[in-house]
């Protein structure tokens, strides 16, 4: 690598490589040299860090596998939930997509201590059924808990105060009355769509498990969930625990 350019230029190049999820240092000489430089040259590392910070990115991991970047809050690089499913702006759809995302991560990392494992270990592929089972079991448990409690009134529904699990089960019931097979496919389709979109982002690859399609998490996805589960998700979990009871206020 020539050293005629300013280190910032090289830092910019490294960020560019990091934004290409399919690029690998093993296959790109420039990328490999930049990753090595990131390891060996503390000044360069600082430059990369400052640059990514300014752009609104975190460097989650740098290794021989490449650089894993993640968007910071409000970053221009952050994928908005609404962009995940172009053409649909319904709150319910966004909600179900978000739940599917967490359920997928929960299926890949079923126990808290899985999040602490070496990200180089390839985790088992997941199927749509497995992810759906995680969501369904939880929703049904909450449904049983809520038995005997008064049903949410129409005004609560209009104000978006109904609990998320009801939306998930409603979606299933609404279609089930017409064609139960289609209803099964409807909830599964949401998850399948999420997995396919994640595949587009280089987070999964599709494999076959017997005759069933399955989605294999990539190292990049594992790093992202493992690193962020401890920060963003954990904060979410904290906030939810601190939150007032489900139907108490919060009409915004």
């Amino acid at each position, binding site marked *: 690598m020539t050293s005629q350019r300013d280190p910032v230029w090289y830092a910019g190049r490294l960020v560019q490589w990091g*934004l290409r999820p399919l690029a690998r240092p*093993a*296959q790109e000489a420039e990328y490999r040299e930049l990753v090595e430089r990131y390891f060996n040259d*503390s000044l360069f*590392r600082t430059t990369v860090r400052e640059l990514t910070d300014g752009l609104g990115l*975190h*460097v*989650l991991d740098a290794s021989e596998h490449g650089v894993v*970047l*993640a*968007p910071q*809050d409000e970053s221009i*690089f*952050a*994928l908005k*939930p609404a*962009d*995940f499913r172009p053409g649909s702006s319904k*709150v*319910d759809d*966004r*909600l179900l*997509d*978000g*739940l599917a*995302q*967490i359920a997928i991560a*929960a299926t890949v990392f*079923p126990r*808290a201590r899985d999040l*602490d*494992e*070496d*990200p180089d*270990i*390839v*985790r*088992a592929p997941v199927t749509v059924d497995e992810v759906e089972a995680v969501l369904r079991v*939880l929703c049904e448990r*909450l449904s049983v808990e809520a038995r005997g409690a008064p049903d949410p009134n129409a005004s609560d529904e209009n104000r*978006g105060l*109904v*609990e*998320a699990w009801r*939306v998930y089960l409603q979606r299933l019931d609404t279609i089930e009355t017409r064609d139960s097979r289609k209803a099964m496919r409807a909830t599964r389709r949401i998850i399948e769509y999420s997995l396919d979109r994640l595949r587009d*982002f280089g*987070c999964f690859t599709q494999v076959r498990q017997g005759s069933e399609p399955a989605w294999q998490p*990539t190292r990049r996805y594992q790093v992202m969930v493992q690193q962020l*589960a*401890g*920060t963003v998700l954990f*904060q*979410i*979990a904290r*906030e*939810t625990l601190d*939150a007032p009871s*489900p139907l108490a206020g919060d*009409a*915004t």
Partner: protein
Amino acid sequence: MTEASAASMNDSGEAGERPGVDFAVLDSVAPGDASPTGRASGPAGVDSVGDGWPIDLTRRLRVLLHTLPLDGMRRGDAIRDAELRHYDGLVLALRVLDVVIDRLGLEAEADREVVTRAFRPVLSAMDDAASVPVSPKRHEWMLDKLLGGLRNDGDARRPFREEYTAIDDDGQAQRHALEFRLLFDAFHPSGRTVLRPSAEACNLYLGLLDLDVEDAQAAAEAVVESQLARGRFDEAVHSARQARIQSVRFRDKVLQILRDTRRDVDRVDWKVEAPRTLNESLAHLERRVAVERGILGAADERLEIMPDEEAGSRRAVAQVADLTRDCLLRHAELHEQLIGARNVFLDSQARQAFAPKPSRPLPDLADDVLEPLLRMPITRADRLFKRGFPPFAGPRVPVLASLEGLVSWMLQPRRPQPRQEIPVEPIDATDLDAELRRYPLEVRVAAEALINGADGEVRLSRLLETARASQAPSAVLEVIALLALQGFATEDRDTAGVAAELLVGERLEDPLLYGDDLLLSAVGRHG
């Protein structure tokens, strides 16, 4: 299991304060229920139980527990699908570990393909012994079972989990759970997925003596030297192989420290433990490299003076030299890593100081995150998703419009179309004739004459009628029908000598043939 190997496992357990290596106390059992003797807890009981429960016993038990998945594979032989029962699961499982450990740290680490290649002859030999025909498909199936068993596919590839009872310091029986892996898929920088053995599997397979790794390696190499000197070449090859295994394990130990440091500096004790291990390793490595150079020199010298007639011995010594060269190469690479190890720590510390620090304890995603979200009113959950969603997909690269690029694109001259090659479809000249050639030439000529003799288009039934009227033999009628069918068949239409169109609703009326009637016309080609 020998005491020696038990102690060696203990080494690994102590060194590895990392997930999947150490056991965790999962539940405490009430003393009354737990103690098989029903012994009351209290000072007297504590002493007697404590005295009677050597710590080493637990360590050995833990070693033994690591072998249970392998034992399970042996038991699995009897209940496997009938076609796979003649394979010895335990032997094959050990062979998988052998192949995988042998390649550890090499550029071409073992993957499924490598293991398949290594297994083909072994499985074929087992097929032969059971008088079962060799089947690559069955081999793949068996390999699936083996790798699945070693990876614990049956439990979603989670670590194996074995529970056992031990008596604690207070003399109370407690249930513990030991979690460990034997084999796992790992991401390789090249993008492949490779098979890697866990540290436990390495220890289990290598069956280490009750010695430090360094000493074990020195011993192995001393044996090679002595065997070479005494002319016991085949044994020297075996010992050189052992020395290389030690070298693999030694390398693994050091790299694990560096890997853990890169990942999280807090995982490794860089005040005392790691610097001591690395310094010792460096000194050990320098000694080993000197010894290995000596062995290599001796082996090369032997090769020079050995007469060609001793081909077997020459081969053995050459093998010793190759194995030693491999050790040297590994050690040279490791030396480089060790020299830079301190920097790895300093750099990792600097890097990780600014990375988003995971909170502890880590959440259970289903119970601590998903469930509270499901309980939330949707508007609140939606707001949280706005923040929690982006990290799951990674950064999305925003697209910037470039007016310059757009204008250049719009104004660019039309790209010249590359000259299209006109594909020439080979005409299968024998295709039509093969069927026709069954008939003598005069029959074919007569049939064609009748078709050509018809003025323009003619119905097949009419043509056959005319042919009958002219006393044409059945063979001529058959050829006419055959040509008509060739003209009608889509694939033959371009090459047939007759064009034929279906007359919808019209039946062919002929004593020899039946079906839809066709409208025929002669075309240019002559068959």
